[in-house]
């Protein structure tokens, strides 16, 4: 499905490009000193190429959404302001894209100059017209049947650099696809790609400079996890960081015996990047086996940690471990949110992190220093954090079962949070008062087989693509979007839902917060108060993050639910 589509590009798309070109031209004139011909040349170049400089300065072209979380700081914040508290009630559905897939639609689309790129699960890359939803091309990819993702054959989106779109696949390949034709540029098995052993990709890759960074899933199968940077041009591996420290690597002493060999440490979601520090940040998943830590005595680095890596070399600069020697499956599978805030009276380059373990953390992202840690949901597994943020564990799984808050799905999970630099608030998709009974059972390792040590029992099912019934008692837990002030850890508001949520959160420069939930609503809240301003029924659980883009100056908001993508704009 490639190779001859260039001539199919409709007039509409060229019009979009023209509109953006005029904007760039205007900016060039305002800045002055730039010749008209040169500006035009630059403008044409911009449309042909998504340079990393464009991605870094994405907020100057808010009509586009050039990287998974909107910008490399992963704030999932849109500078667009057309949709406001006053008019949000006039949002209407503009178009729907129905995937040929019954999997959960977890991808956040990218939008580049009127073209949307997303993934139909598991691994069909799709380019659509962002104004109408009409499909330009599809690059279909069928991952190996050997792939064994723990929790759905899903994909969370793509990255773009230059004229190339990058997609990680369920069977551990990274694909480079021509953004205009849908033709394959290269396809590399990252690190050899061993899907039969549990390796694979579900995340949207992160582009930093000339590299595409990915990390593998497989923590339920006893993999040894990694983060790898791939040369965007050649597909060759530039560097690799092992998320589980092996012999000769710092941290290996936190694994008893050879337990590091099956130590897990998945990467489920996209990392972040600070261009001033040249550090890229990634959250690392659970140690293996998940629920029985007997065979892996020690802290088990770098499971359940955030690692700060030199973006050029992959060298570890610092790490912070949220849950040492985890036995609750508290993956640190959250997107690191980078925010520059005032903390204790002075400006800090901070990192905001609501962890699956139920705790909200504020770290200094230059050094990894622990600044603040408070529960954002009910937590009973530890007795407090020490001055360095290390928890004092008081409970563990047992053969008889131990009741733990938060439950196995955590206080939050992979769903994208958001930070608004306008309100200064951190918005967290939350599972409130949820619990699991953790059971410990013996476990032996067999490659390709589940390596977990018994499953926790929980009254709430994992999400599925279709509509779900909710007959739960209130005391079995509920969902919420919560707003916290990262300067103090103080909760500002909570928007309650009867059912839990697998939806990310988007905040906007017009002080709106968009999110959804398992109930099948997509809604807008007042970013300052949490008041519900608008809602639409999308008919199935939302299990992705909202994003926003504009075409011809008209702001749109996109969300997936079930196996479809919905795009809204104001009624005209």
């Amino acid at each position: 499905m490639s190779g001859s589509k260039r001539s199919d590009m409709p007039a509409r798309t060229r019009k979009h490009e023209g509109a953006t070109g005029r904007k760039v031209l205007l900016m060039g004139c305002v800045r002055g000193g730039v010749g008209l011909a040169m500006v035009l040349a630059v403008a044409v170049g911009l449309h042909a190429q998504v340079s990393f400089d464009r991605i870094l300065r994405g907020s100057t072209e808010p009509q586009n959404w050039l990287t998974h979380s909107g910008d490399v700081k992963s704030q999932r914040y849109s500078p667009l302001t057309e949709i406001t508290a006053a008019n949000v009630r006039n949002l209407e559905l503009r178009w729907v894209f129905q995937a040929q897939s019954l999997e959960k639609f977890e991808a956040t689309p990218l939008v580049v100059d009127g073209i949307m790129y997303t993934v139909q699960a598991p691994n069909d890359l799709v380019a659509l017209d962002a104004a109408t939803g009409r499909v330009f091309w599809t690059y279909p990819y069928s991952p190996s049947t050997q792939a064994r993702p723990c929790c759905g054959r899903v994909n969370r989106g793509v990255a773009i650099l230059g004229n190339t779109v990058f997609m990680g696949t369920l069977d551990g390949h990274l694909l480079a696809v021509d953004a205009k034709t849908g033709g394959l540029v290269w396809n590399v098995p990252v690190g050899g790609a061993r899907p039969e052993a549990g390796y694979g990709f579900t995340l949207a890759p992160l582009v930093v400079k000339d590299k595409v960074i990915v990390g593998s899933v497989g923590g339920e199968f006893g993999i040894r996890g990694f983060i790898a940077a791939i040369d965007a041009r050649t597909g060759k591996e530039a560097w690799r960081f092992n998320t589980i420290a092996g012999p000769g690597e710092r941290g290996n002493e936190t694994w008893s015996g050879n337990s590091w060999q099956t130590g897990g440490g998945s990467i489920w979601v996209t990392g972040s990047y600070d261009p001033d520090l040249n550090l890229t940040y990634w959250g690392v998943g659970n140690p293996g086996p998940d629920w029985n830590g007997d065979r892996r005595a020690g802290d088990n680095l770098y499971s359940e940690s955030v690692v700060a890596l030199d973006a050029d070399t992959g060298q570890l600069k610092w790490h912070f471990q949220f849950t040492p020697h985890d036995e609750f499956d508290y993956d640190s599978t959250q997107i690191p949110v980078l925010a520059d805030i005032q903390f204790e009276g002075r400006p800090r380059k901070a990192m905001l992190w609501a962890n699956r373990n139920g705790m909200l953390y504020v770290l200094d992202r230059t050094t990894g220093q622990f600044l603040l840690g408070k529960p954002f949901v009910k937590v009973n597994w530890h007795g407090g954090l020490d001055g360095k943020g290390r928890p004092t564990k008081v409970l563990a799984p047992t053969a008889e079962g131990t009741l733990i808050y938060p439950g196995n799905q955590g206080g939050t999970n992979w769903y994208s949070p958001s930070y608004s630099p306008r309100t200064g608030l951190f918005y967290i998709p939350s599972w409130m008062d949820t619990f699991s009974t953790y059971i410990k059972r013996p476990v032996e390792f067999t490659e390709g087989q589940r390596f977990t040590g018994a499953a926790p029992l929980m009254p709430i099912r994992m999400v599925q693509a279709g509509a779900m019934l909710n007959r739960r008692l209130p005391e079995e837990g509920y969902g919420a979007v919560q707003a916290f002030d990262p300067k103090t850890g103080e909760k500002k508001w909570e928007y309650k839902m009867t059912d839990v949520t697998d939806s990310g959160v988007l905040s906007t420069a017009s002080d709106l917060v968009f999110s959804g939930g398992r109930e099948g609503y997509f809604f807008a809240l007042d970013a300052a108060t949490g008041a519900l301003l608008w809602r639409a029924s999308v008919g199935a659980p939302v299990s992705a993050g909202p994003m926003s883009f504009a075409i011809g100056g008209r702001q749109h908001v996109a969300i997936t639910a079930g196996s479809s993508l919905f795009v809204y704009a104001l009624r005209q």
Partner: protein
Amino acid sequence: MNARIGVLALLTVLASGALLAQQGKYLPGEIEGGGRLYQANCTGCHGPEGDGVAAVNFSNGRFRRASSDEDLLRIIITGIPGTPMPPGNFSGSQASTIVAYLRSMAAGGGANASGDAARGRLIFEGKGQCQSCHAVAGVGSRLAPGLTEIGAFRRVVEIRTSLIEPDAEIRPENRTVRAVTRDGATITGRLLNQDTFTLQLLDAQEQLRLLEKSNLREFSLLKTSPMPSYRDKLSAPELADLVGYLASLRGRP
């Protein structure tokens, strides 16, 4: 390796085997979860009492090819080639809950219905007034769970417990909601679904209704069953007959 070490190693293996064999301790939640999987996937051949396949009876702990939990786990996942027992589409943890349920069946003992189903039917339709809430083959009310196939899914011991202690276990799909509207009217029914803004239920008039929470003064999910206990309403023989009737309900002929 000298002989002494060899014996020690053998003893260690035997000891660990014995340890595994003792792992009959399963949690109520595991047993319940396994029971649901069993009812959905296994009763078609094995029956609710686990005695549907010749020479196998889960209620008596009688297996043809398995003795340890590990044996059962393996068979549930991989099936038995050359027999009608197929590989199950279960994760290891799901399969282990089925093992938990199988073990609980044996621990509960084989409980065959001893009552007379024909007499039990008369009680069901008469003195017991069961049809005022339950339906069998389309006869009766829809307010409570339909019982047309109850004998195909629930064990005799479970049916008896439900009759004697209705509040002991109320499954989420059988919860009752009580709502009071702003004008003071009370509505009760089976909770079918709910969200932040609405309740969906089957009300006492057997009408499907959606209630906007904003129009309600209050609402709550009841933690007790609307069904009375039959412990004192029926004699022991009558109860046995009623259980016998319900256990005989295996769907429409």
